[in-house]
């Protein structure tokens, strides 16, 4: 099967996945006993006002009619209005989606930068002190609940040392007196583009703790993965032969071992990316990070289902696209993998 055929088939399948998720979320959110019209009008609203609101949003129509209407407007890029905040969901997403992506991407960068070196070094020094220490640390790393680690780091770096802020994306002074212009929505990028270096520094010290906490699980996962495959390769006969032939140790490590370890690691990284988007929910709450996680948590608590639907849809699309990307990438890297 050619690569293009494969791509088209996968995309068609992806559409079904998205529609499926959307339908299930829609049905579930409409089965939950709640009254969105009352949510919109507030607790002390008059009966007339509630009826008027029900009419306005078509909430008095049957569920299939509402679903068709919802799908139509979603295709046109209109996610509707949040019943809770009464603002257009699209406007909110423009703020929250980049905030989450910025956090997740930085945490992945950290994971790669820290995880790969640790994995390589432990693999190369298998059974030595560093490896043992690394194993203890990575095992603890995957087992520690992220919100607990977040609280401990806050305690150390905010309460005791006063080095890092407690939460948020930016200090108040920058928010009010020198805000970063909204270009991409990624604070670090926007501040760099506009040369607003003071704000860049401020954004960095705000993002670093949440990004690190979010990175801990991927760091451990990646380093264990790399370590495992390196050990596996290093015990192979052909490596022994290469070593016997006088091949320098670092060449053995990079040419044979690391190369073999990269393909499965890539899969892990991309899956971890998707994992981090949902994993960021807890982190965002602890660090008061204004991202998708915090947005959808508020929405779920308040039964604000247009927001729940919109966020679910976006996360699903991201997930599907990442999976597709990984499959293609793997095929490109590893000739043993066939598409089909």
């Amino acid at each position, binding site marked *: 099967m050619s690569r293009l055929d494969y791509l088209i088939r996968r995309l068609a399948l992806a559409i079904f996945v998205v529609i499926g998720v959307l339908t299930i979320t829609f049905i579930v959110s409409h089965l939950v*006993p*709640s*009254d969105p019209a*009352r949510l919109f*009008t*507030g*607790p*002390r*609203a*008059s*009966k007339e*006002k509630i009826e*008027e609101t029900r009419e306005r949003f078509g909430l008095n129509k049957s569920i299939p009619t509402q679903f068709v209407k919802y799908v139509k407007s979603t295709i046109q890029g209109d996610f509707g209005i*949040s019943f*809770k*905040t*009464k*603002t*257009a969901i699209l406007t*909110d997403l423009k*703020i929250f989606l980049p905030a989450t992506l910025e956090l997740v991407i930085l945490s992945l960068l*950290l994971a790669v*930068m*820290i995880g790969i*070196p*640790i994995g*390589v*070094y432990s693999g190369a020094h298998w059974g030595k002190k560093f490896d043992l220490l690394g194993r203890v640390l990575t095992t603890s790393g995957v087992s520690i609940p992220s919100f607990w680690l977040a609280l401990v780091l806050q305690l150390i*770096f*905010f*309460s005791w040392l*006063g*080095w*890092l802020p*407690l*939460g948020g994306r930016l*200090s*108040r*002074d920058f*928010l*009010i007196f020198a805000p970063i212009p909204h270009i991409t929505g990624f604070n670090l990028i926007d501040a760099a583009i506009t040369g607003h270096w003071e704000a860049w*520094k*401020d954004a*960095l*010290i*705000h993002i*670093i703790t949440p*990004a*690190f906490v979010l990175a801990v699980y991927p760091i451990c996962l990646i380093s264990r993965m790399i370590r495992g495959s390196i050990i596996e390769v290093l015990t192979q006969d052909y490596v022994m032969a290469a070593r016997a032939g006088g091949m*320098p*140790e*670092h060449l053995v490590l990079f040419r044979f071992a690391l190369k073999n370890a990269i393909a499965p690691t890539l899969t892990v990284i991309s899956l971890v990316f998707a994992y981090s988007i949902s994993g960021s929910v807890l982190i965002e*709450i602890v660090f*008061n990070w*204004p991202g998708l996680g*915090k*947005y959808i948590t*508020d929405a779920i*608590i308040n*039964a604000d289902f247009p927001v729940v639907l919109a966020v679910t849809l976006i996360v699903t699309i991201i997930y599907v696209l990442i999976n597709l990307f990984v499959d293609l990438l793997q095929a490109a890297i590893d000739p043993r993998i066939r598409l089909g």
Partner: protein
Amino acid sequence: MKNPKVMHLILVLGVVLTLTFSFIGSGTAEGASKKVLSVGIVQDPNDTDPRSGYDSYAQMVLYHMYEALTYYNRPGSKEEIGPWLATSWESNKDKTQWTFHLRQGVKFHDGTDFNAAAVKYTIENTVAEKMAPSWIYSPIKSMEVVDEHTIKFSCKAPAQLDLILSSGFGAWMISPSATNTVKWFNAGNSSGTGPYKFASRVPGTRIIMEHHKDYWGGWKEDQFTSIIFDIIPDATVREQMLRSGDLDVAYELNHDSIESLKQAPGVAVHIEPAFKSNFLLVNFKKPPLDNLKVRQALAQSFPYDAVIAGTYGGLGTRGSGLIPQSMWGANPDLSVTQDMAKAKKLLAEAGYPKGGLTLELWASEGNTLYKNIGEIWQPELAKLGIKLDIRVLSFNTITDKAKTDPEHAFDFMGQDWYPTYVTPTDFFYSVFHAGEFFNFGHYANSKFDDLVLKADDMTASDRAGSIEAFKQAGKMLADDVGAIFMYDAPEIYTIRSDLEGYEYSPGYSAVFSFYKLKRKK
């Protein structure tokens, strides 16, 4: 890189550097600037439309951006009602004709002049849009713009209009030339006359206000020019930030922390009277609670003091009937004390000498208060042979069930109430008048309903008589055990102690003026 040692070194260095980089930030955030007041609140206001915003979270922000015609002064002040956007007013003897003289030189946020036409517009618009608090205007028959700064009201019956117009909800004046739609207001726009206006709003995250330069009160050098409301749902985080000075004002901290905050350096705690009453509604449609003796027995078994100590950190005060003790119209003689012997006797008289009942307390999600109260009550009820089940459900589920199938709904439901404008009517009528939406317990007593309406009618013409009638209504409701009246809740403000100019009125208990605050030098 021929030497593997070098490579190892680089790898190790890489790890160390990244770790260091991720841990040690280059200095910390600067403290909030002197001109910025930072406020930590629990959740986003549900509605920042001044015509419809109808809960404490809405008042928390609207109060700084909008003003009403009159101001409800702190009890104990010389006058009950003071000037705000109106400087003076008079009425005819039977209080059916009112003339308000408006403040001159007032500008809305959009630059429009505030005048009598704007008052007329605001009230007409709020009523036409059927906004939730618009019922406060129901006594008004017509309005007449006499001149630029004078407006005349004709009322259908005698009405205390100066009190009504001091309302903490729905009485905010808005500019006739602004867009004024629900969506517009909630997208971070404001059209009031208040000292601050919306600068930006990120839902669920933050609200920023900046000062309204043309504010009629003028501006001095040391006032705050910006207010930032950070939405921080976690009470411990808000407390930490207040202690460290990252917040100037922290809303709704845990009651258990108040004692230690009083001792904390840099923090000031203000415990204020509020017109807020907490009670357990009783379901009159569901046996055995339709039996007065059973209700009386239950009210006698309630551990009032233990509940105040256990759930409100000892900060609440014993209630006496529905109306909070600090408010006018309260009846001080209705307080009930726990008396298990009496409870047992009453229960036996009702035909349940051994108890043998199972009752349900329904508490709404997201608020652990009523669940905790139920847990304190459980062992007391067990002594009477009554089992109390606590169910945590969404507010909508509770109220839907109460409306559509009351026979299978709660036995008790936790509820609190505060007035729209300061009148006992808002308590008695809204929660206990037959057929009203918030009468989830289905209390129905036509004598009580008539008495409340009579007391309300007399509010304007004969305040003393009206107070007497409200007291009677309170007694009638307490005698019927219309609810278990638990306690009056105070309002607690925790702020940095370097702020001066703090001023509070329970007429607007969710807020205090930020315009009047200054940072001590």
